[in-house]
């Protein structure tokens, strides 16, 4: 027995003494040594960390068959079976790099992303509200990026030679039909939605994914925020109105709801800053919205957003055809939008993203010819004059249902597919000066199916390949649109991308109902991109070529309105764009510069030949500069936008030749705009503060430079009038307050 115990003890003793060394070299699949790899003899304390040469060394007293594991983030776990005996072990290990979001190339051709979390984003959510030329408008901040035109006379994004109608806007996957307030002649309206509703935005200037369609030029994809960080109430007061709202976060932080109301009235602003137009009804709007968001078990979200607004505006301007008369325009609008979206993880690597949206829009327009004393002037003999007295009522209803399913294949590679259904019903009642009513109805049922795959071959090479299939009742044909996008990582921080795609679009509403037999209009995009991006710098160069085919040519219908007649239009756009953002070189200064060169011509609508459209400039540049001065708790933002002159035309119908001709043409002066804004945050960093305030002072076109967007011609072509902004300069002063209810509540609870 003694002998037995002794043997055991001796054995133990020997065991402790018999330390075996294990060492080796750790490399990646490119044979580069890896530093910081953790090597473990499984289920023991023994192991080591590789040094800068990839070497490791440790000793162990374990014996027999053991498992050696090597781990480091970004690489697959390596497992080596070893048998420990009496000789030192040398075990070299090769680790295979994982395809991870952090390291993988980004499929980015054509796209700009504004996000706080995603890598590859060029803007963050704060940039949208602190870019002075944007005036807190969601889409306007994107006008400081390359690819967009500085069009000030009408709303929307004019991208790479495309019209505003060629850009579509999506919220949580659903199309937003009336993103902007209803158009008023010669004055761009703002977007309806508050920029703080969105946590991420992707602005594609071309070559976008097969998940979206019906836009020849561009899509803007907005993603709404998830749960608020805390229950909060906010209040804003400014020269343009007042508003407030609350966001309530449930105690378990799994759901939230919110409501807000905003009242806009430009009376004060328009009294202080003289407007070119004579407003008999200053712009006035009531807007209210409500939302709820529920976080699901699997980390998904069910989100609802509902919006309703009513607004009115009316103004007189000098009638262009006469020296003495005035033209009076009045608009009344009622708009609703509702969107419910469910995004979730299902089992076995499947994801679902589905949603339904409904919206309605009602516009009532009354146009009148008025005398110098603002009395109605009825003219019944002269044809074109008499048409200036009219009213127009437009009632539109839209619905959309959408489902996208996604399945993870391997690593980051996924395949997704799904479908869209769009319904639109628009009814227009046009009442002439003599009371004659014309009623037009346009209904469309558009179905789309799409499939797309993201393939990550390695961390350095990825492709997005997709196809979209569409059928619109208006056209009554199918179209098939392939899209492909490739990305290749050249070096650690730089990558090259290429995209090709075919895009189809129906005629925009104002050209409908068209002549029977019209087809889809079409554009082919070819994009080549080079990007170099670090945390502090972004350099992006993009070359593009866009070929338009089957664009709509128009003819006047029985009441003089231009409608889509055929698909004989065509055109092209090509150019090069630069974007440079630097957050580092100058301390506490963040600036970006963008430049676009655009060469484009097209023959569409009533153009007599292939000409450069009046909404395009050849050279566009923007410079945005932001500096935050900590001791003053104040941010200073400056932006400078420049565009070379745009062509303008007087296109008239020549009865003798029986065709459209250019009666006159010219080029506007260069466009320049220097805007400046100051944000003052008095409570910044005061943790005890109950309210958090942001004061904003913004001055648009601070130098009061003359801006001419276009020219309007009189009916006989003898007079032309510059289309200019309603005021040379605009000044915004406002205060935004937010109150965290949660904290005060906590403080009360803690003291009880």
């Amino acid at each position: 027995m003694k002998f037995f115990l002794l043997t055991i003890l001796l054995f133990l003793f020997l065991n402790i003494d018999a330390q075996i060394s294990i060492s080796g070299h750790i490399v990646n699949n490119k044979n580069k040594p890896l530093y910081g790899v953790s090597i473990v003899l499984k289920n023991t304390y023994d192991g080591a960390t590789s040094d800068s040469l990839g070497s490791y060394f440790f000793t162990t007293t374990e014996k027999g068959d053991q498992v050696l594991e090597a781990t480091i983030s970004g690489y697959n776990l390596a497992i080596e079976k070893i048998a420990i005996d009496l000789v030192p072990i040398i075990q070299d290990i090769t680790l295979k790099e994982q395809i991870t979001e952090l390291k993988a190339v980004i499929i980015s051709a054509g796209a700009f992303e504004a996000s706080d979390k995603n890598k590859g984003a060029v803007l963050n959510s704060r940039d949208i509200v602190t870019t002075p030329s944007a005036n807190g408008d969601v889409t306007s901040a994107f006008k400081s990026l390359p690819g967009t035109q500085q069009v000030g006379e009408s709303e929307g994004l004019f991208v790479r030679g495309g019209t505003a109608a060629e850009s579509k806007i999506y919220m949580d996957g659903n199309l937003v039909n009336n993103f902007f307030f209803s158009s008023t002649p010669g004055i761009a309206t703002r977007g309806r939605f508050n920029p703080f509703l969105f946590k991420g935005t992707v602005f594609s200037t071309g070559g976008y994914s097969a998940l979206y369609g019906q836009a020849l030029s561009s899509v803007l994809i907005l993603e709404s925020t998830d749960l608020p960080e805390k229950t909060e109430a906010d209040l804003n007061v400014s020269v343009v109105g007042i508003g407030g709202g609350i966001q309530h976060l449930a105690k378990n932080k799994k759901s939230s709801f919110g409501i807000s109301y905003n009242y806009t009235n430009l009376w004060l602003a328009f009294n202080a800053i003289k407007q070119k137009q004579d407003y008999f009804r200053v712009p006035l709007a009531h807007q209210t919205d409500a939302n709820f968001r529920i976080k699901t078990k699997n980390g998904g979200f069910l989100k609802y957003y509902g919006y309703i607004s009513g607004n009115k505006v009316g103004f007189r301007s000098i009638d262009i055809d006469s020296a003495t008369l005035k033209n009076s325009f009045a608009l009344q609008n009622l708009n609703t939008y509702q969107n419910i979206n469910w995004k979730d993880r299902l089992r076995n690597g499947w994801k679902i993203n589905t949603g339904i949206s409904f919206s309605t829009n009602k516009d009532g327009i009354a146009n009148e010819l008025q005398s110098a004393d603002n009395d109605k002037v009825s003219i019944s003999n002269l044809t074109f004059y008499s048409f200036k007295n009219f009213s127009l009522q437009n009632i539109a209803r839209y619905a959309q249902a959408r489902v996208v399913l996604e399945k993870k294949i391997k690593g980051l590679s996924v395949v997704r597919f799904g479908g869209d259904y769009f319904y639109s019903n628009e009814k227009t009642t046009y009442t002439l000066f003599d009371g004659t009513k014309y009623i037009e109805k346009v209904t469309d049922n558009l179905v789309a199916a799409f499939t797309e795959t993201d393939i990550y071959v390695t961390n350095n090479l990825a492709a997005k390949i997709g196809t979209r299939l569409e059928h619109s009742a208006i056209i009554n044909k199918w179209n098939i649109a392939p899209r492909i996008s490739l990305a290749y990582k050249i070096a650690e921080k730089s990558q090259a991308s290429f995209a090709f795609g075919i895009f189809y679009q129906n005629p925009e509403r104002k050209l409908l109902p068209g002549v029977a037999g019209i087809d889809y209009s079409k554009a082919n995009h070819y994009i080549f991109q080079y990007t170099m991006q670090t945390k502090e710098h972004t350099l992006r160069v993009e070359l593009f070529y866009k070929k338009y085919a089957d664009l709509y040519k128009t003819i006047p219908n029985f009441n003089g309105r231009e409608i889509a007649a055929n698909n004989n239009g065509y055109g092209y756009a090509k150019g090069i764009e630069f974007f440079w953002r630097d957050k580092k070189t100058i301390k506490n200064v963040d600036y970006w510069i963008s430049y676009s060169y655009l060469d484009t011509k097209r023959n569409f609508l009533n153009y007599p030949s292939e000409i450069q459209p009046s909404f395009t400039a050849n050279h566009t540049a923007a410079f945005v500069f932001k500096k935050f001065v900590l001791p003053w708790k104040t941010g200073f933002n400056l932006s400078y936008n420049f565009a070379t002159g745009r062509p303008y035309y007087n296109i008239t119908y020549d009865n003798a030749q029986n065709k459209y001709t250019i009666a006159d043409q010219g080029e506007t002066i260069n466009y320049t705009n220097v805007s400046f804004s100051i944000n003052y945050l008095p409570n910044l960093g005061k943790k005890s503060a109950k309210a958090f305030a942001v004061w904003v002072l913004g001055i648009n076109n601070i130098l009061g430079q003359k801006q001419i967007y276009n020219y309007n011609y009189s009916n006989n072509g003898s007079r032309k009038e510059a289309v200019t902004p309603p005021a040379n300069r605009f000044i915004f002063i406002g205060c935004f307050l937010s109150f965290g209810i949660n904290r005060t509540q906590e403080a009360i609870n803690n003291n009880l």
Partner: protein
Amino acid sequence: MKKLFLSTIVLFATVAVIAQSEKFTTAIKKNLAALDTSFKNPADLLSVANNFERVANAEKNQWLPYYYAALCQVNYGFMEQNKEKIDGYADKATLLIAKADSLSPNNSEISCIKSMIASCHMMVDPMQRWQEYGQESNSNMEAAMKQDPTNPRPYFLKGQGLKYTPEQFGGGCATAKPQLQIALEKFTTFKPSSEISPNWGKERVEMLIEECK
């Protein structure tokens, strides 16, 4: 004979258990010593982190090695100069501290690490992140104070945070010093529950107070 055999086994088993826990304590102690010196050389910090993680994964039911591994990772994150890499270390620390948390819930020391991790994330882009991570850091710090009022470390973190906050934001020595004094007082009375329990930070507090003189 049977009795002897049984008692031998019992003895042997007890010896094994004691040996095991002694081995554990020794391993932690050895690495704690390494931790003390590793701040001078960040590269060592990562290898000490790995040492703790090995012990943690071999034991699986001890929160301390996970805690120390997370502490090393987050401190490594604080020392990292390349801002793009910081989030990675903070995420690794989060994984480790989550395991510690599940083994020892409502632990003041663990809440301190959570607060440090949030601060580490915030450091990458303070302007953009302070709202989210600043709050997370604070709430964990406050939780730590509640969970163990005798623990000096949350006060140390609070003081340290304030010291490095610009004066315009309500930071600086003036507001930091009272917190650091509280931390120092608590350090003098704080008794770690074992020789391997968390007991770090006193020298750092003294240094910060010195800097504020």
